[in-house]
């Protein structure tokens, strides 16, 4: 199991230092000496987007392929070769967010926009009133992921790591004993996310899987024993049968009902580029808008506001101001026609990686529609309290 890093700049070098058994490919021969100091790292001088070189390095046993050069074209060509040789995990740095579409078309699931994320981060630091109201807060600091099965590591856990790396949050996973702990730790390390894994007995995990809401909220109660109070739970999307839907037998929905913090149902497993916030005249829209701006700010994403009815003008103004402060491009869409149908249309449009909605319907957006979106939307869904 090896990692291949293209680009021996600062980011590449720091990453290689954290990941022994890595091969680092750098075009500038002057850097050879500096890079050779890294223990357990093989240094190759050459063009990382050259197929011949990469085949010589050998991509067959590569676990993760990370392209970190500052040139989008090189990163694209390198990622395309890695994709061709079926490397299981490809992470790419994209300088120009407008380039992201071609990377997505290529099928690269993990795309980072460091320029925008760093710009937003620096913006936060130098803005007057740092730490006070004027600052755009990170949406979450402590993310909890219940590992329901080994698939969760590839799904909800992966998405949690992306969100945490963008929001500079830590992740706690509650898991059954047989989970591939090493793999989880390795992935968290790759993205620089502090990770804690709490192993629970198989019996307890079965109760958790079956009844996330058991006697209140068992998953929250368990982490409370470790003095851990998460501000977001990221959970796998749940496959429901017709009968389960008819009788509302959804574990995720019950968790959303009993948890006092936002719950994110993971379906995207990558960074977010376009986020949809569904707003109506209810009070919950304030939280929806606020979280949406914060997540968009952290991920460097665009925020689309779907305004279903006459929302308080002040709220939209406030969100716009927040967007301006946080360097978030805000696109408003005022709905004409039936609000619920328009909400479905937009959520299902595949234009968004994340939809932010209230956890229950108190305005024109109805609770049964919220349930449907949580269960069946094609994108990830963040329900906020």
């Amino acid at each position, binding site marked *: 199991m090896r990692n291949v890093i293209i680009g021996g700049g600062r980011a590449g070098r720091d990453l290689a230092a954290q990941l022994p058994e890595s091969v680092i490919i750098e075009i500038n021969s002057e850097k050879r000496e500096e890079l050779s100091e890294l223990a357990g790292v093989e240094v190759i001088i050459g063009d990382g987007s050259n197929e011949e070189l990469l085949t010589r390095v050998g991509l067959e046993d590569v676990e993760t392929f990370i392209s970190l050069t500052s040139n989008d074209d090189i990163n694209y060509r390198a990622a395309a070769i890695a994709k061709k040789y079926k490397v299981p995990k490809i992470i790419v740095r994209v300088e120009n967010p407008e380039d992201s579409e071609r990377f997505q078309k290529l099928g690269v699931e993990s795309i980072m926009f460091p320029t925008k994320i760093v710009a937003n981060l620096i913006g936060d630091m130098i803005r007057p009133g740092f730490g006070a109201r004027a600052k755009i807060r990170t949406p979450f600091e402590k993310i909890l992921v219940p590992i329901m099965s080994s698939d969760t590591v590839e799904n909800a856990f992966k998405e949690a790591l992306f969100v945490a790396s963008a929001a500079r949050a830590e992740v706690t996973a509650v898991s059954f004993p047989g989970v591939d702990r090493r793999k989880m730790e390795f992935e968290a390390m790759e993205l620089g996310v502090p990770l804690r894994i709490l192993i629970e007995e198989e019996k307890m995990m079965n109760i958790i899987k079956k009844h996330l809401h058991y006697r209140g909220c068992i998953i929250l109660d368990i982490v409370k024993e470790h003095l851990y109070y998460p501000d977001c739970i990221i959970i796998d999307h749940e496959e429901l049968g017709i009968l389960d839907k008819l009788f509302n037998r959804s574990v995720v929905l019950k968790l959303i009902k009993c948890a006092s913090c936002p719950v994110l149902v993971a379906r995207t497993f990558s960074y977010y580029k376009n986020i949809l916030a569904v707003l109506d005249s209810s009070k919950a829209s304030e939280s929806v808008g606020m979280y949406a701006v914060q997540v968009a700010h952290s991920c460097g994403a665009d925020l689309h506001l779907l305004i*279903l*009815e006459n929302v308080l003008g002040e709220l939209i103004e406030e969100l716009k101001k927040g967007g301006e402060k946080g360097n978030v491009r805000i696109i408003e869409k005022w709905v*004409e*026609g*039936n*609000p*619920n*149908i*328009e909400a*479905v*249309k937009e959520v*299902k449009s595949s234009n968004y990686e994340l939809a932010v909605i209230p956890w*229950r*319907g*108190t305005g*024109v957006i*109805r*609770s*049964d529609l919220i349930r*449907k979106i949580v269960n*069946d939307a094609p994108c990830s869904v963040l329900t906020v309290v």
Partner: protein
Amino acid sequence: MLMTLIMNPYILLLAIAVFAFIIPILSGRIGVPAVVGEIICGILLGLLGFSPEAEGRIIIDFLASFGLIYLMFLVGLEIDFSKVELHGAKLFIFGTFIFIITLGISIFLTTKLGFGLYLALVLSTSAVGLTVPTIREVGLLKSDFGQTILISAFIADFATVVLVTVFTLHFKEGATWGMFLITLVFILFFIAYYVGKLAIWHYPERLSAWFKSDQPSEMGVRAAFALLLIFVALAEIADIKAIAILGAFLAGVMLSLLFRGGTVLEQKLYGIGYGFLIPIFFISVGMQFDLGALARGGIYLVPMLLVLAFVVKIVPSLLFLIRHSLNDSISAGVLLSSRLSLIIAMAAVGLELGLVDTAMESAIIVLALITSISCPTIFRRMHQRK
């Protein structure tokens, strides 16, 4: 010559249309609901001998009968189940308790007084259409108190329509056949609701156009009428009026459940109803209002009905004392005592099925006229004083 003119259905329609136009302006000035004005206008027309015959009668009767069905459809459309869901089981149970006590007292009193069960059901109705604007007017729409009254009114109206259908079917068709039909209607309702939900999720693009104001084919209105008429046609095939009433009501409830918030379509449907069909029903109710029957005995029923109407609503409303003041509890009972469209519709159905006589029907109409004017006014006064 004059009689020939009067008998012409278009002249009759013209007369009704002109009155339907003038009445809301006049009733707005006097401060009474337009429905009250329409019934009084109908009574005056009846007194003037403006009674359609033959061809005219058939047309007016048909339009009035369709107006009644459409009215039930709009009553269903007014019921907002998201409110029940939003406020959880507690308010729903509270509202159901209030209705059960109302029904219990109604049955006890009407039986003691020697009237049938049908009157007990009729007296258990409320008037969602009056309750919502009154509560909104005094600024209580978003309060816990206001929502409890609303949910109680929703439950009363919904349960009464279902119970009246069960009762009339049982009365007319026998228990087994009646229950079978009701169950069938509810199964149809749930299937249509489920299919509607799936359609919204799977075909939002197509459905979206139905609710836009610039839709030239008015697909939303056409779909709503088709939905309404499925139930009505089924009822006609089975030759059971009560099923048509319940079906139209459930069609309205379904539209409300599936598409609430789509103001454009709702406004169009309200426009067709309150702009044309429903005034014909109420004017026709007024024209057929039997003043003779009222004078012969109905007038003596009015005070008794009034007392019953208030008692069966105010006594259960004392349950409000658990969380609210005595003034609030009584005021809730008073507002729930107001009756209008639904009770008149129920009286019309009862008369057609022979469950109430003309004297009782006239008395019920007078009761509706009095309570629809007085109850919201008393409620407003009780809250303004605070």
